[in-house]
């Protein structure tokens, strides 16, 4: 049996990764965990871009977008971690459910 | 045009002078009440001067009524001309003013009474600005009714006068002023609606040739409405003596009857008079009531001569009812003002009796009575105003013996009362006499029964005179001062007119004659000629 790794396999991995990310975003109360879920989703997307760049018609542009995503994810993570740190310093929690100062 | 000042015709001047005055009054700062009064007075004096000019330049002997060449001081321009308004077709309304022998006495009367009314308003002590502004607006409305020859214009003026009257009674009136004002307003509005309906029906029934384009078009021109040839044969009011013409006549009649007021539409009058301030009562009785009969003579009679001939007899009977019923009701009153209000009803019955006779004597008497009643009732209301200002009551039984306390007042009052009784040598005698004479020639028994009114009038007037002026003076009125200069200025001109016209009635009758005779023969010839023709 020959193990041919094609587009399909990449997409499956990406989908699993995406679902795990979504799951993390939805179910975790801890802001850090939610952040990690978002990173998973972004990486799932990156795998898709790379896979389409290799097997599909996107060519180089797929790799370029992936690089952009990585850069944006880094920037986003930096900002988000700063916010979460500040929230923790202010409110002594990183639980997203308890951070409802804007409500009421 | 001949009779102009600054390029504007006399009639426009006399009608819109008060509006100018109103604007000036509105521009004056609130506190400056004295200048408001003086401006109102100046405007009415000017108006009186213009009325005098019109009087002097009026040529007696011209006919008028349906004859455009018989009118004088004519001003005619297009006012509203819309080409094709939805289903209405072309709407063309003229600014059409003109007077004949029927309007002349009314114009003079309006100018005179407006002038007297301002003097009587001198001691209004509540929001004078609004009062005088509304007063002057009212003045324009009244004058406009008497000079308008386009029916739409007539209706506009008719309504203009209604609103200020409502506020003047409703704000400056007595304790039940709101009730009286609303009653007056709604009642008159009901009449206006009927007039409006008939006006529209006439509009759609009458077609004339547009002199400019030669096309046929509808018109509001009253003179055109008087010509039977102008009616479309198939329109609602076309034809002669048709059902709808009678309906229209009755509707129009009710509209005007409310204003006169004719029994049984008269009950707004006592309330309105009792609650209105003196000057407004004077205007109301002096001028507004005349609009009803003026409307009958200017519109109902010549436009519906066929219906008029048919309803002349019932009209005379209504006149009789007004005379006797009004006099009997007046006899039962203890409120001085209410008594005079009912006496107005009685005296307006004489007008109705005279004009319904449809002959020369009756018509002359009826129209003359309109003028005379205006002057005499104005005097009577001023007289009540004088006593009310001092004693703050109008209950006749509360008085007595004022003749000694206020001798000058008593003297003037005697003249007014005797005029109302119809004493020879005073103006109402002449007009009542002619009215009865005319009615007698036409409807003998109605005139005979109506003459009961002569006795009844003497009865309630003398009784009132006795209760207020004769007998012993109650102690609480010992301090009442006699009539003052301002009140004399209001009363003396009226008194002069009362006596002058009593001795020389031809001063007033002469300019009226040609028009009234023409009206009589017009109604007879067109009314019967129309029915004979078909």
């Amino acid at each position, binding site marked *: 049996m020959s193990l041919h790794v094609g587009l399909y396999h990449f997409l499956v991995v990406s989908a699993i990764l995406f679902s795990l990310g979504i799951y993390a*975003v939805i179910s975790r109360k801890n802001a850090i965990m939610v952040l990690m879920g978002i990173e998973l989703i972004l990486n799932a997307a990156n795998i898709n871009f790379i896979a389409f760049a290799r097997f599909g018609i996107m060519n180089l542009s797929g790799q370029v977008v992936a690089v952009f995503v990585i850069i944006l994810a880094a920037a986003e993570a930096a900002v988000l971690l700063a916010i979460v740190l500040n929230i923790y310093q202010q409110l002594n929690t990183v639980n997203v459910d308890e951070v409802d100062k804007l409500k009421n | 045009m001949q009779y102009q000042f600054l390029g504007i015709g006399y009639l426009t001047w006399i009608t819109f002078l008060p509006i100018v005055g109103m604007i000036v009054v509105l521009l004056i700062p609130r506190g400056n009440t004295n200048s408001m009064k003086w401006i109102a007075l100046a405007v009415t004096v000017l108006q009186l001067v213009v009325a005098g000019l019109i009087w002097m330049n009026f040529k007696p002997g011209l006919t008028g009524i349906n004859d455009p060449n018989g009118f004088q001081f004519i001003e005619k321009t297009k006012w509203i001309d819309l080409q094709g308004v939805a289903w209405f077709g072309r709407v063309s309304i003229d600014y059409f003013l003109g007077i004949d022998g029927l309007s002349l006495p009314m114009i003079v009367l309006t100018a005179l009474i407006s002038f007297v009314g301002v003097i009587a308003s001198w001691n209004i002590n509540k929001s004078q600005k609004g009062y005088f502004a509304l007063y002057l607006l009212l003045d324009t409305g009244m004058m406009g009714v008497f000079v308008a020859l386009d029916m739409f214009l007539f209706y506009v003026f008719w309504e203009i006068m209604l609103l200020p009257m409502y506020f003047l009674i409703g704000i400056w009136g007595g304790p039940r002023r709101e009730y009286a004002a609303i009653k007056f307003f709604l009642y008159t509005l009901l009449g206006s609606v009927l007039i409006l309906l008939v006006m529209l029906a006439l509009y759609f029934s009458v077609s004339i040739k547009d002199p400019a384009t030669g096309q046929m078009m509808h018109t509001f021109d009253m003179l055109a409405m008087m010509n039977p040839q102008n009616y479309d044969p198939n329109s609602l009011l076309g034809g002669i003596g048709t059902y709808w013409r009678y309906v229209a006549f009755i509707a129009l009649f009710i509209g005007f009857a409310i204003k006169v007021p004719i*029994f049984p539409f008269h009950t707004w009058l006592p309330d309105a008079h009792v609650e209105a301030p003196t000057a407004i009562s004077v205007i109301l009785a002096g001028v507004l009531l005349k609009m009803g009969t003026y409307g009958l003579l200017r519109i109902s009679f010549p436009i519906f001569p066929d219906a008029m001939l048919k309803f002349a007899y019932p009209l005379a009977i209504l006149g009789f009812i007004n005379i006797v019923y009004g006099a*009997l*009701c007046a006899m039962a009153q203890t409120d001085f003002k209410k008594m005079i209000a009912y006496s107005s009803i009685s005296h307006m019955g004489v007008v109705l009796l005279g004009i319904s006779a449809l002959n020369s004597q009756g018509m002359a008497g009826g129209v003359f009575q309109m003028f005379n009643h205006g002057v005499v009732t104005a005097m009577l209301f001023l007289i009540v105003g004088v006593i009310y200002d001092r004693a703050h009551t109008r209950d006749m039984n509360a008085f007595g013996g004022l003749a000694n306390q206020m001798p000058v007042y008593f003297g003037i009052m005697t003249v007014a009362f005797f005029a109302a009784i119809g004493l020879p040598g005073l103006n109402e005698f002449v007009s009542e006499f002619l009215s*009865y004479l005319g009615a007698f020639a036409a409807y003998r028994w109605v005139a*005979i029964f109506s003459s009961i009114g002569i006795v009844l009038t003497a009865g309630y007037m*003398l009784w009132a005179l006795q209760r207020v002026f004769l*007998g012993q003076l109650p102690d609480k009125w010992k301090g009442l001062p006699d009539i003052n200069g301002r009140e004399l200025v209001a009363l003396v001109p009226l008194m002069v007119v009362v006596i002058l016209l009593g001795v020389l009635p031809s001063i007033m009758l002469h300019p009226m004659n*040609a028009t009234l005779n023409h009206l009589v023969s017009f109604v*007879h010839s067109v009314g019967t000629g129309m029915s004979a023709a078909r």
Partner: protein
Amino acid sequence: MASMESLLIHLSLAVLFLPLAGFLLLIFFGKRIPRQDLIETGLLFVALAISVFIMVQKVFFMSVPRIDLTFRWLDLGAVFGYPGLTIDLGIAIDNITAIMLVVVTLISSLVHLFSLGYMEGDVRYTRYYAYLGFFSFSMLGIVLSNNLLMMYGFWELVGISSYLLIGHWYEKKSASDAGKKAFIVNRIGDVGFFIGIMIVFTQLHTFLLTKVFGGIAAGHLSGPLLTAAGILIFCGAVGKSAQFPLHVWLPDAMEGPTPVSALIHAATMVAAGVYLVARVYPMLTAGALTVIAYIGAITAFLAATIAITQNDIKKVLAYSTVSQLGYMVMALGVGAFSAGFFHLVTHAAFKAGLFLGSGSVIFAMHHEQDMRKMGGLRKKMPITYWSFVIFSLSISGIPLTSGFLSKDSILAGSLAYGILTGNYLIPIIGYAVVFLTAAYMFRLIIMTFHGEPRDHHAYEHAKESPKVMTIPLMVLAALSIFVFYSFNPLNPDDGWFLKAVTQPASVVPAAQSYGFNQPVNLSVADSAQGGTSLAGASFVEQPAVPTPEYHEVMEEVHYPGLVVSLTLALLGIFMAFFVYEWKKLDAEKLKQRVLPVYNFLYNKWYFDELYGATAVAGTVILSKSLAWFDSHVIDGVVNGAASLTRLSSRLSGQFDHYVVDGLVNFSAWFTGLLGRGARKVQTGKVQTYIVFALLGVIVIFYVFRQF
């Protein structure tokens, strides 16, 4: 117009306007002029002088029967149905007018003079004189008018001046009541007059008497309508001359000052009714004249019976006046035209004298009018007493007096009428009244002047009145002597008066006039018409020519009638002396014996009560109930319509509130409900949103799975 005629007619205008000038002067400048009373009195005497001049000129030196001065008052122009409608007015002088001018100005000026004393110190002295002037003006206006309209006008003015003068002391309720009653009762008569005028004008289109007569002569007004017109015009006279059934105002009018009673309510104004009938005499049909005769006779009798029971001196004289006016009216009714007018003139003199005499007595007694408190005044007031006697003799019809002459003519005329027509009731009443008149007049004299004084205090203070009051009495007493009217004390026919005052010929159709007074000149009048024109301008009144039959009867009855009337008068005087002077018969006992009759007469036949209960109360109740009807029913309908509108508006308001607005509110509420449910989903948690977003994506995928 000849110059003398022109002068006379313009002088008569001066007579007319002099009193008016006085009135205006006093009303406007009264207090500022010294002795205003003298000005007014002087003006009247000037008017008197002019009037005498006019009369002498007219009656003795002029052949023209009448002088007219007409002007066009109103011109109603060309009228539908007529060629032209005009109203002409004017004045005219004929013999009757000239004589009346003198009568009015004479009595008026004497009364002015008398009032100087009587009214001295009155609160409204100036106004009193002003009103007197105004009255004189109006009365002269009636006399001078040559047309019905002006006559009616002045008629009313006279009524109003009478109203003002009766109510001169208006602080007293009875005085102001009396004035009002006088005016209103007169007005009732005037309405009849008014309708009569309307009939005449409607048929003939003129008010000028000559043209009216011309039109009637030409046959433009005849039949029952003519009779009706005559009776209706007579209604005016019924009111003013206080004839039955409108006589009730005159006794009450005695509330006015006594000189006023003398002038207005005895001599002039009340005689205006008689004057009016005399003026329209040619147009009265036999039917109308019969009514007039009966009304006069009834009045004469009625008033005389009442007079005999009254105790107020002025009331007796008032009823006496009513009775004498009844005589005059009766005389005109029976066709004794000249006699009736003659009596008017003589009566004016002696009745004015009686009233002024009673005024003198009242003045002396400090305004006491009850005869039962007088007595014995003869010695204190000789001038008043003797003049009073002359007046009483004259009114009773004793020879050598003026009253005898006129009354005798009336009685002869009524007797002739009775014989010729068979109506004997009228002469019988006439003679009965002679007896009653003599009786009540001498009862008055005896109770007032004879016997012992009953009120000693008042008697002590009584004294003869001042000169200004006695001179008028003496003048009037002199004028009550026969010589001024005829030199033959027994028969006035040859005197200047009856020669001057001739009966005008009737213009009514022959079938409608008395048989003995046929309109002989009908054809003359007719030809004067010129055919088509309605009223002939050239119509001239003609003296009536009685039939020979009438002459004959008059000759026959004159002396027998004279004897009968004289006997009755003397009997009346004797009765008065018998009961009141010699007291052979106790008046009190007599009264008790006929108490019901006495009460009936004393209460004036209960006329006031009757009218009060019917006409007056009826009118008051009618007016009250109509006022109630007006404010409750008619206004109730109006207010009802208003409340109905308000009710329906309230109902529609409720509908609007609950149904229309309810639907709107319900939809809003329902939306809110939905919103509340949906809000549950809005948690504010990003994670929840993502779940929903995912679900949505899944759904979309499911839906579009086939693409």
